[in-house]
């Protein structure tokens, strides 16, 4: 990525966190790490006073610590991919992701707080952190439980060539 | 050699600014000093009347005539918006006892040249359709006029500045000393000193403390007047309004009038005037509470109660602000204007009570004539600071 593009896409200028910024943070799971199930990817790079992700995790995979402005650190080897942190994060900054899910497809579960909700099997357009259309995707399931408190979690698969870019879908 | 100051005026209210402007017109080098901001004192918390009807025949009424003429000239000279209006005024009469006293009073005023009359209930309602039913009659004069204090003060300041007048705000005077050369030296909070042969004490309710700096006594007491300001509304009637109740007690001490305890305690009387910006100013209380400029629940509600008792229609009108001014009151109800005995060059121009706006131009004109030594075709003895006896500097 050229220097200019990097500048343009800084979080505090563009609004979206850039891949360069993400790669520099310890809690981010790099694409070359492979897991056999989707694991939580945390895109929270500012020390805001907040720790619901740590509280929500049933297996202790996420650590914030006593100082709640510390950035959360996830241990993907412990993460079971249950998705509770995805719905708990007030900043909607956590996804479940798996690069090699099946047949050249990546897997994502992301929080979605718009209406209407997509349906299982529906073809949707996946977007990157800047809202750019990246590729098509297929909704695998939509989970909306009382515990998630009106934050729906949409699970989808998409072309793994765009594994890192995709974070959400175009609103319906 | 640079010319020094001729006059330092302490107090930048309407009296100080008018004095500064008139003296500047006479080529005097004037500096006006005020401890507060623009119109921070009584001149910024008062009605805007050039009111004739409340005045007994005598010097106050005569000076008001002169002041009105001077205002009319200023309006021409300045060519500025000063919101001069001539809505006329009515003093509302509630019972036969008040009617009798007001009829006599109006007759005296008429003989003095004031165009005023007593009108009946029906005529009163023609001018004020929303008057309460209990009003049996009213006085009416077309002469009562008004002018916006803020516009006047801004214009006086602007034109004064053009003539070389100086103004210092937010700079209190801490001492006034006599120098060996006979000049006065005025020492300010910011450490500056200003030397001039003449000092004018135009500090309104604060005039006593300024006089004290040179060992003089000025028998002015602050009288708090709370007023309430309405939102901007269409005119509710033709004229401005006062009530006879209070006037009657002043005219005939001991007259029995129906007053609630509250009215008596607060010294309430009605003044209902349509001001610049088409809001209504409603007042007022008359309280002796020292230099406390605060408003009180009793005062605000007292004014609202009273206003609604005369104009029930106002109940749907909003009030946006309550405020209080300290009216500088003298023992005999006349202003203090003149040079202090044994204090050459120290003048006081203060004590206008509720008539500072009305009397500012004539005060300023007389003050400048006094200071410049011009002939004055009127005996100012009854306004002299020395009239109270035994109070001059030893």
């Amino acid at each position, binding site marked *: 990525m050229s220097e200019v593009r990097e500048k343009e896409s800084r979080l505090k200028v563009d609004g979206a966190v850039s891949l360069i910024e993400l790669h520099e943070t310890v809690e981010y799971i790099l694409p070359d790490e492979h897991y056999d199930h989707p694991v939580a990817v945390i895109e929270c790079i500012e020390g805001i006073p907040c720790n619901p992700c740590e509280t929500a995790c049933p297996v202790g995979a996420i650590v914030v610590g006593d100082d709640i402005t510390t950035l959360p650190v996830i241990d993907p080897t412990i993460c079971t991919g249950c998705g509770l942190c995805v719905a708990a994060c007030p900043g909607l900054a956590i996804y479940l992701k798996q690069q090699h899910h099946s047949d050249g497809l990546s897997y994502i579960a992301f929080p979605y707080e*718009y*209406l209407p909700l997509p349906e299982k099997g529906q073809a949707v357009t996946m977007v990157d952190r800047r809202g750019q259309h990246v590729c098509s995707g297929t909704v695998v399931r939509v989970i909306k439980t009382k515990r998630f408190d009106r934050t*729906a979690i949409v699970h989808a698969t998409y072309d793994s060539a765009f594994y890192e870019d995709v974070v959400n879908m175009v609103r319906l | 050699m640079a010319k020094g100051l001729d006059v330092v005026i302490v107090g930048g209210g309407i009296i100080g600014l008018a004095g500064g402007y008139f003296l500047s017109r006479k080529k005097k080098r004037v500096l006006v000093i005020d401890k507060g901001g623009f119109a921070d004192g009584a001149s910024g918390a008062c009605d805007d009347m050039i009111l004739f009807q409340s005045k007994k025949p005598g010097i106050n009424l005569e000076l008001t005539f002169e002041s009105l003429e001077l205002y009319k000239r200023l309006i021409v000279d300045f060519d500025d918006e000063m919101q001069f209006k001539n809505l006329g005024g009515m003093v509302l009469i509630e019972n036969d006892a008040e009617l009798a006293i007001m009829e006599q009073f109006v007759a005296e005023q008429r003989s003095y040249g004031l165009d005023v009359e007593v009108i009946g209930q029906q005529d009163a309602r023609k001018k004020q359709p929303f008057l309460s039913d209990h009003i049996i009659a009213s006085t009416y004069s077309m002469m009562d006029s008004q002018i916006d204090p803020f516009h006047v003060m801004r214009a006086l300041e602007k034109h004064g500045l053009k003539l070389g007048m100086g103004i210092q705000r937010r700079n209190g005077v801490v001492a006034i000393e006599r120098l060996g050369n006979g000049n006065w030296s005025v020492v300010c909070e910011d450490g500056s000193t200003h030397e001039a042969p003449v000092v004018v004490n135009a500090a309104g309710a604060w005039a006593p403390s300024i006089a004290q700096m040179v060992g003089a006594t000025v028998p002015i007491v602050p009288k708090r007047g709370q007023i309430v300001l309405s939102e*901007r*509304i*269409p005119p509710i009637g033709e004229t401005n309004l006062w009530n006879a109740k209070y006037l009657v007690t002043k005219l005939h001490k001991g007259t029995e009038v129906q007053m609630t305890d509250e009215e008596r305690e607060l010294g309430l009387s009605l003044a209902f005037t349509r001001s610049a910006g088409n809001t209504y100013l409603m007042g007022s209380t008359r309280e002796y509470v020292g230099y406390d400029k605060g408003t009180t629940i009793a005062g605000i509600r007292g004014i609202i109660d009273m206003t609604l008792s005369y104009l029930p229609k106002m109940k*749907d009108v*909003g009030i946006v602000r309550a405020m209080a001014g300290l009216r500088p009151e003298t023992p005999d109800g006349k202003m203090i204007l003149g040079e202090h005995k044994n204090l050459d060059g120290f003048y006081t121009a203060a004590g206008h009570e509720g008539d500072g706006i009305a009397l500012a131009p004539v005060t300023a004109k007389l003050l400048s004539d006094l200071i410049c030594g011009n002939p004055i075709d009127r005996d100012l003895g009854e306004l002299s600071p020395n009239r109270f006896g035994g109070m001059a500097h030893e």
Partner: protein
Amino acid sequence: MNRITDHPILGPLEEAEMVDIIVDGQVMQARKGEMIAAALMANGKNTFRKTVKREEPRGIYCGIGRCTDCVMTVNGIPNVRTCVTEVEEGMVIQTQIGSGEWQ
């Protein structure tokens, strides 16, 4: 209509009793208990008054009763802050021209 009938967090808009208000002579439907300003905006009316000096249109600005820009003449009373005044059945609401008029 600009009503938000369904919402991902707040859910579907609850049924409400509707009242008729008369706005500049026209009957409009409002939800009982809602603020006049909300009812007008729901019905697509955004200009609430014309100013005194420049006769310019004004609408909602602060929405919480502080700026007083949304004042209208309501049931004959001028200067009513519509963003903090509830609608009532049969309420007569008029675009306020300048300071309004006595009625």
